[in-house]
């Protein structure tokens, strides 16, 4: 119960932020919040393309770019190559991209897309419950930057003006003092092998 109350506040705060910006025509540029204002990223357990369960807590100690996207989302397709570049550029500095596909049709549509786009970071299959946990993710793309302590540092809704918007935030978070790290040991390229 004591854990659920702060979690509920986090969800309400996220919902308020998302509802105030969803469906707008303007790109949201979310600057990194001050550490004291950050809320914990809600926990989830989702399967990746290889059937392995992924928890957001697995990434504690890393800066995580958590991208809610879908194969039918044109703006998402613009951002994915940026995220692949970030994965490649920053993976050795304690950074990881985690994509949450919101495709209702599941891996049958997602896997061919990952192959076509040559996605080099881990993808999990999302659902409405996880969308709700993260404040009611309605419009795509919606991207969260999570700091090394597992707290949400910024939220980007909609197609950003450019990859520098993300890059600046990532560098800022990577440069922040490290806390105790507990990171997955496998390389990013091992997260997705080949479609079944």
């Amino acid at each position: 119960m004591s854990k659920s109350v702060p979690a509920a506040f986090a969800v309400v705060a996220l919902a308020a932020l998302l509802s105030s910006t969803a469906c707008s025509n303007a790109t949201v540029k979310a600057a990194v919040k001050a550490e004291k204002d950050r809320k914990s990223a809600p926990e989830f357990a989702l399967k990746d393309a290889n059937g392995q369960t992924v928890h957001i807590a697995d990434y504690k100690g890393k800066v995580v770019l958590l991208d809610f996207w879908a194969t039918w989302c044109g703006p998402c397709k613009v951002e994915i190559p940026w995220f692949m570049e970030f994965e490649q550029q920053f993976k050795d500095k304690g950074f990881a991209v985690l994509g949450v596909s919101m495709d209702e049709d599941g891996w049958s549509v997602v896997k061919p897309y990952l192959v076509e786009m040559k996605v080099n970071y881990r993808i999990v299959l999302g659902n409405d419950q996880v969308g709700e946990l993260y404040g009611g993710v309605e419009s795509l793309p919606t991207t969260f930057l999570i700091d090394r302590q597992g707290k949400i540092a910024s939220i980007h809704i909609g197609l950003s003006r450019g990859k520098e918007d993300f890059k600046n935030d990532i560098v800022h978070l990577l440069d922040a003092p490290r806390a105790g790290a507990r990171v997955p040991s496998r390389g990013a390229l091992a997260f997705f092998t080949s479609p079944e």
Partner: protein
Amino acid sequence: MLAFLLAAPWHSLQAQNNGVLTIAAPERLSIKRGATGEVRLKAELRPGFHTNSNTPADEFLIPLKLTWSKEPLETEQITYPKPQLEKLEFSANPVSIFSGTFEILTRFKAPASLNPGPAMLNGKLRYQACNNKECLPPRTVDVRVTLDIQ
């Protein structure tokens, strides 16, 4: 009472509205047994938003699609409007879309074996909408046409 009567037509136009796409309630169709008739489905998208057309170029995009129940009328032909080919902020190539106000025309045939009288025809419109920056999840909305079978 007067206010209610005045408000009724407006409400009928708001029959299906998820905030982005509004579908006007189709007009009642009077159709003779053995004959054909047409239904126009009028849809309006919020300014700035579009849906994929019924024939999007990219295999991963979700086409707009209208489907009707198999009874009581037989669907002979569904005619979608001519799509717009637009270069959007997020697309390298022109995208086949519908925007603004558009109509989908369906021609039905009433089987000669039908019983005369009132009936209801049910359909579903599936679409997926975006603006230049964001996309909304695909939606399926119910469409109902009141029939007068003669």
